Structure formats: structure tokens, C-alpha cells
């Protein structure tokens, strides 16, 4: 039930809608953006961070919850693990069953390697499945990979690693073609032209979509392909530690059955970490749009094995998470809603910003509107939100547009009696994406020999802020890239050396030396939402 205050505010939103319909809302200057980020973006709040005291990034700050896990206690300590007789033996071991892991599996299999994919939930239980808005690629006449490069650089505050970004934008059209040929149903005109829109921070309309099930359509196609290829998928099995060989190269992982607790040893010539993001760590108490298993496990494993992280202190808060109703609090409201023309409006019915600024700027401006200016709409849970004026979409593009272009959003709200075609919806930023992650080179390998990384677990592709549609793109481009290169590397290895977990012991000694032994068990594997 909407509160009286909400209903009163909706009347004001309706009263101003006509004059807002074709309003040109000014974009902020570079200086204005900088100021608003400094004052309101959660990344700039020192109390949300701690400084690492051990490991490759010693002396750098990361979110507090991640810091505790990176410096946590290994799950293999004190366990009797027989490294001499592995339970699994493979060429390429892939940890993670989302878009990146599945793309990597397909390419490594295509290259003729023996591949095995492990996932702590099921293949497809991943943020890829939940990506709604779309995937960027510069494939139109007025666009180019260079234009895409400039947009992503600017969005990323010019911190993107150039050689990674080059790969992202140049391989983008190739990735779309690959997906299309696997059978992904992109939104197209009658003549085959891709239907493309803007995203926050894009200078060309290059957002390709599959309605607002873009990630789901891509993920289920990849999953079907993995199954068709009969690639072994070991589900409900988490990787809890990497294994190295006697030369210090990564050579497998210790696995744990999520239900029975049984441990297994997997030996591999190369390993790909594709474990995704960290939304379920709920940095600074934010709700999240992420899936249940997004607990940064891969970062913990890689860090203990000696792989440095890059930009692990930058987190993306999606500007529009659900603020109300409480049942879906924090769930994602796709950026496509704004791409289609819905404006962000405050309690008085005033459109307070151009809704297609980059995500970090938009989220910060919404926070300012609520916290500093007091123009948010209070919710029964004690929080607040601003309106996303969805009826504008039907007015701008014709009746039926919402059902056709964003059916998942319509369905999600209708479950709770809210018809977004007729009334605006309340939104507030939600923890959405890990901009940083494990540092890699353009071949997908981390600083640790034979350890490859792909997808959200990578840091550097997007600099300090990712643009909409560049994540679905990155899981495909860098997933395939890691699969190909990990396979090629595996072919150069005749026999794997003697397996060891000595790096885990060394890390534990470092922790003891820093007085940090006995921290929480990590990786976290799953959040705990049971009532305490």
C-alpha cells in the first residue's frame, strides 16, 4: 500500500509531467561531477574502508567487508587434503558458472582441451542472468570502436587499462556476432538492423538488447551450448583454495561440496577464475541487485595465491534500485527505463537531473537529493527514494512500449499491484557492481603463472566506473579470451608438477606476523540471512 505522502507526491509528479515531456535537461560539467562524487558517492566515505596489512596490495584501502575476507582464515587450514591423488584431472579448470565462465568453457572446449567447470550453485546462477538493459558494441555506421573507447575511458575516469579497453571495444562487434550465431535473439528491426539505445555516458546509441531479459537470454544460450558440448559441470561445488605446483604456478583447486562438505582435489594445467562480484557483502549496509552467491570468492583465492588486485576500492552503486515495495527492496530497475525516456523526479515533482549521466554521478545526485536537500520520498522502512516517472515512456513511444521493451520490470511491479505504465516507481541506489578486481594482462592471465581471470572478478577494464552495457560485453569478450588463452597455455604443459598448498601456509604466517590470525573463514561462499 502506498503511503498518503507517496500518493500526494504522485499528484505533483502527474501535474508536472506535461511540461517535462520534452524538457532538455542539462548535463553537468566535469567540475560539477567531481564535486558531487566527492561529497556523496559511497566510495569517497573513508569509514567504509580499511587498509590491507598483508598480501600483494598491502597498504591499499578496500571495502571493510572485503578486507576482512582477504585477510580471513583459509578453509583448508588443519584439513587433511591428499594432493597426491586428485579426484579430478583436467586441462582447464573453470571456477564459476556465469557468462564469463561459460564463454571460457565453450572456447577452451572448441580449442580441443579437456575442460571442467565448477560452480557453487548452478550454471547460470550469476549476475549475467540478471543483467537487464543490454550490451554495448559499436556496429552502427555513425559509431566506431574508437568512439566506444572514448566513452568508456571518460566513464571510467581515465583509469581504464588501455590494452584491456582496446580489446573490449574492438572485440565487441565480434562478440555480438558470435552470440547471434549461437542463437541469441537480439531486438532487431524487420530488415535486420539492431535496435540500439543510449545508456548513461554513451555518445552513440549502441546498447543492444533482448527486451529487458538481455543477460538472461545470453546466459541461457551459453548454458545450453555448454550442455550440448557435454562439458562437465560440477554444480553445488565451491573452490575454496587454489593449488600451486612446485614452481609456483597455479595447478588446480581444492573444492568443497556445498551440501555434504566433502573436499575434493582438482588438478589442472591452467585455471580460470570467473567467480563474479561482491554485492552480497553489502558494503556500507547497501542492499544489492546481485545474485545470492556474489561474495567475492575468487578475489580471496587469487589474493592468497599472490595475485594483486586493481581498483578494488571502487564499487558501482546502480542509481535505480527498488526503494519500494519492501519485498523487492534493492532489486534492479534497469537503466533502460531511463534510456527509454523516464525522468528522475523528486517529491515535489521536479526533474532534478539529466537521467543519463554516468552511474556514479547519477547515484550520487540521487543521494544528494534525498540526504542533503530533503527532497526524497520517505518509505515505510525508514528509507527514502525518488520517482522514476515511467508513464512518460508510454507517452513518448506509444502505448504498449513498456510491455514490449521492459516486460520483466512491468511483471516485477505488477506482483505488488503497481502498474508502472500508469504510475511512477520509487528508486534509490543499490550495490550493483565491482568495478575493480584481479589485475590481468590482455591475454587474461593474472600476475600468477597459469591463473587466468574473466568477468566481474577482473579489475582494470572499466577503470573506476563501468558504463551500462559494458559488463555483459566484458564477460563475453574476456570470457572467450581467457578460454582460448588458458587452453593454448595448457597445451604447452606436458605434466603438472608436484601439487602444494604451501602458499596458504605462508599467507597464514604473514597474518600471524601482522597479528591478524583467526579472522573470519573465507571465502565466504554464501551470505547468511537467517534471523539472529
Amino acid at each position, binding site marked *: 500500500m502506498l503511503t498518503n505522502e507517496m500518493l500526494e507526491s504522485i499528484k505533483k509528479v502527474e501535474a508536472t509531467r506535461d511540461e517535462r515531456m520534452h524538457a532538455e535537461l542539462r548535463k553537468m560539467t566535469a567540475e560539477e561531477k567531481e564535486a558531487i562524487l566527492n561529497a556523496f558517492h559511497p566510495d569517497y566515505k573513508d569509514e567504509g574502508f580499511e587498509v590491507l596489512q598483508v598480501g600483494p596490495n598491502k597498504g591499499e584501502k578496500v571495502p571493510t567487508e572485503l578486507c576482512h575476507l582477504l585477510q580471513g582464515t583459509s578453509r583448508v587450514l588443519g584439513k587433511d587434503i591428499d594432493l597426491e591423488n586428485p579426484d579430478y584431472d583436467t586441462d582447464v579448470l573453470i571456477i564459476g558458472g556465469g557468462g564469463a565462465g561459460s564463454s571460457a568453457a565453450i572456447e577452451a572446449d572448441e580449442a580441443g582441451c579437456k575442460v571442467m567447470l565448477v560452480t557453487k*550453485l*548452478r550454471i547460470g*546462477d*550469476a549476475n549475467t*542472468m*540478471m543483467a537487464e538493459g543490454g550490451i554495448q*558494441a559499436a*556496429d552502427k555506421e*555513425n559509431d*566506431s*570502436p*574508437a568512439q566506444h*573507447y*572514448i566513452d568508456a575511458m*571518460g566513464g571510467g575516469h*581515465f583509469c581504464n587499462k*588501455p*590494452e584491456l579497453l*582496446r580489446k573490449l571495444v*574492438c572485440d565487441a*562487434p565480434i562478440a*555480438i*556476432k558470435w552470440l*547471434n550465431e549461437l*542463437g541469441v*535473439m*537480439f531486438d532487431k528491426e*524487420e*530488415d*535486420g*538492423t*539492431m535496435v540500439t539505445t*543510449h545508456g548513461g555516458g554513451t*555518445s*552513440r546509441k549502441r546498447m543492444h538488447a*533482448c*527486451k529487458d*531479459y538481455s543477460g*538472461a*537470454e545470453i546466459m541461457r*544460450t551459453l548454458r*545450453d*551450448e555448454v550442455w*550440448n558440448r*557435454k562439458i562437465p559441470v560440477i554444480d553445488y561445488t565451491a573452490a575454496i583454495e587454489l593449488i600451486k605446483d612446485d614452481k609456483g604456478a597455479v595447478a588446480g583447486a581444492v573444492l568443497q561440496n556445498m*551440501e555434504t562438505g566433502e573436499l575434493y582435489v582438482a588438478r589442472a594445467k591452467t585455471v580460470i577464475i570467473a567467480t563474479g562480484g561482491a554485492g552480497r557483502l553489502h558494503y556500507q549496509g547497501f542492499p544489492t*541487485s546481485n*545474485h*545470492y552467491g556474489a561474495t567475492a570468492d575468487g578475489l580471496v583465492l587469487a589474493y592468497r595465491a599472490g595475485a594483486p588486485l586493481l581498483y578494488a576500492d571502487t564499487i558501482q552503486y546502480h542509481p535505480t534500485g527498488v526503494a519500494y515495495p519492501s*519485498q*523487492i527492496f534493492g532489486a534492479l530497475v534497469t537503466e533502460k527505463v531511463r534510456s527509454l525516456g523516464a525522468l528522475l523526479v523528486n517529491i515535489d515533482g521536479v526533474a532534478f537531473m539529466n537521467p543519463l549521466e554516468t552511474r556514479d554521478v547519477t547515484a550520487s545526485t540521487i543521494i544528494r537529493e534525498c540526504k542533503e536537500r530533503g527532497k526524497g520520498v520517505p518509505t515505510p522502512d525508514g528509507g527514502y527514494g525518488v520517482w522514476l516517472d515511467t508513464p512518460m515512456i508510454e507517452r513518448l513511444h506509444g502505448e504498449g512500449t513498456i510491455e514490449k521493451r521492459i*516486460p*520483466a520490470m512491468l*511483471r*516485477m511491479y505488477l*506482483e505488488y499491484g503497481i502498474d508502472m505504465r500508469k504510475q511512477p516507481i520509487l528508486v534509490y541506489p543499490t550495490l550493483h557492481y565491482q568495478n575493480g578486481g584481479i589485475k590481468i594482462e590482455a591475454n587474461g592471465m593474472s600476475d600468477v603463472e597459469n591463473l587466468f581471470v574473466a568477468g566481474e572478478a577482473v579489475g582494470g577494464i572499466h577503470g573506476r566506473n563501468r558504463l551500462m552495457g559494458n559488463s555483459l560485453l566484458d564477460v563475453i569478450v574476456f570470457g572467450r579470451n581467457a578460454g582460448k588463452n588458458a587452453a593454448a597455455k595448457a597445451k604447452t604443459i606436458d605434466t603438472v608438477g608436484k601439487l602444494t598448498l604451501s602458499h596458504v601456509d605462508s599467507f597464514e604466517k604473514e597474518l600471524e606476523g601482522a597479528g591478524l590470525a583467526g579472522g573470519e573463514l573465507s571465502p565466504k561462499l*554464501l551470505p547468511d*540471512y*537467517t*534471523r539472529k
Partner: protein
Amino acid sequence: MSEEKMVNIFIMGKKYEVPASLTIMTAMEYAGYKYVRGCGCRNGFCGACATVYRIKGEFELKTGLACQTQVQEGMYISQIPSFPTKKAEYDINEVSPDQQVMMSLYPEIYSCIGCNACTNACPQKLPVMQYIAYAQRGDFKACANASFDCVACGLCSVRCPAGITHPQVGELARRLNGKYIAPESKHLTKRVDEIVKGEHEEMIEKLMQTPIEELKNLYNTRDIEK
């Protein structure tokens, strides 16, 4: 804030009192269950939390996704985190979009008795029986579009007396449609050719060599498509 309204629900037959505002998923967690199975994206996209329930005193068996369904008084809940279904293996490059492919891979669809239990079970409210009918006829475009919002929770298959695995039939139809039936995007083919020939290398190289201050200027003054 006023006192929280509570309801009684029955999780696999056992009674718990939980806040009325919760979903089935958060109510189970409130009751003390920590999920391993039966929970995925928590946002209605992955189909991991297929659930059946009956309201005390009512006849009808209902279905829903635990993450998207609010609890009610007297709700008897069982989750179906896994159900044996059929997945036919095929090579997408070797099949063609004609009626024959469904006959050989999913012949059981022709045993549909028209009971419509699948459609009634769908938490996404899709016309499931209708899309199976399209598949029978070899109209893969229609099948693909009608099944597009499927999250593969499998509740249709649980209820099907003919043993059809509807989500997999839809998946095959969508892949056939996306690959073979939908028109080619010529601008995409053209751009990929250019990239493969290296025609964009020089521009990118130049940008990679450009000093940050100059890049910033390029970014801040770039023209934006209307």
C-alpha cells in the same frame, strides 16, 4: 512504525509465524533456513526457487517463485529445487529450423493432451501450452516469442502429464530463431569485417597514445547522438 502484522505459514508441513510483508524466500530465512539449493538470483530471473503451495481450506494447488511471491495466512509451502527434466543434445550448426528437428529431439511434445496445466503453473504467466503448439507446427518464431520470458523454473514440467520439458523446447526454438530465422544484421557483418581486416587499429592506437589531458578534452567535447 506500527506493530508488524504476522501470518502463519507451513514450511514442508511445519508451522512458523512470520511477518506478513515477507516473500516465501525471506520468510523461510526468517524461520531459520539457510539456503544452498532453491535460491539463485533472488530477483525473478533464474528460476532456482520454484515453489508449490496450497492455502489452507482451498482446493487449488498454486505455484510461484519463492523470491517473488508474498506469504499469506495458511500457506502450505514446498519448494522444488530440482526436478528431473530432459535436455536433448544437438549441434546448433548442424540442425535446421524445420519441423523435423522437434520431431527428432523432443518427440514427446506430440503427446500433449491439451490439459493446459503447464500454462496454469507458469509463474511468468506465459502461454506455455500455446508455445508448445507452435513448436509442434514448426513455427519456431512464434514459439520463441511466446516463450521468451521463460525463466526455466520447470513448474510447467512438474505438472505435465505427458512428461514434456517445456523450457528446453522453448530454448531450442529461440536458438533456431535467433540463428536461422531472424534477419541478418548487415551493419554488424560489415563492422566485423572491418575489424578483422584491421581497419580500426590505427584510430585505437592513436587514442592509446593520446595523453590523458587531451583525452579528457576529447571526451568533454564529443558530440552526443540525439
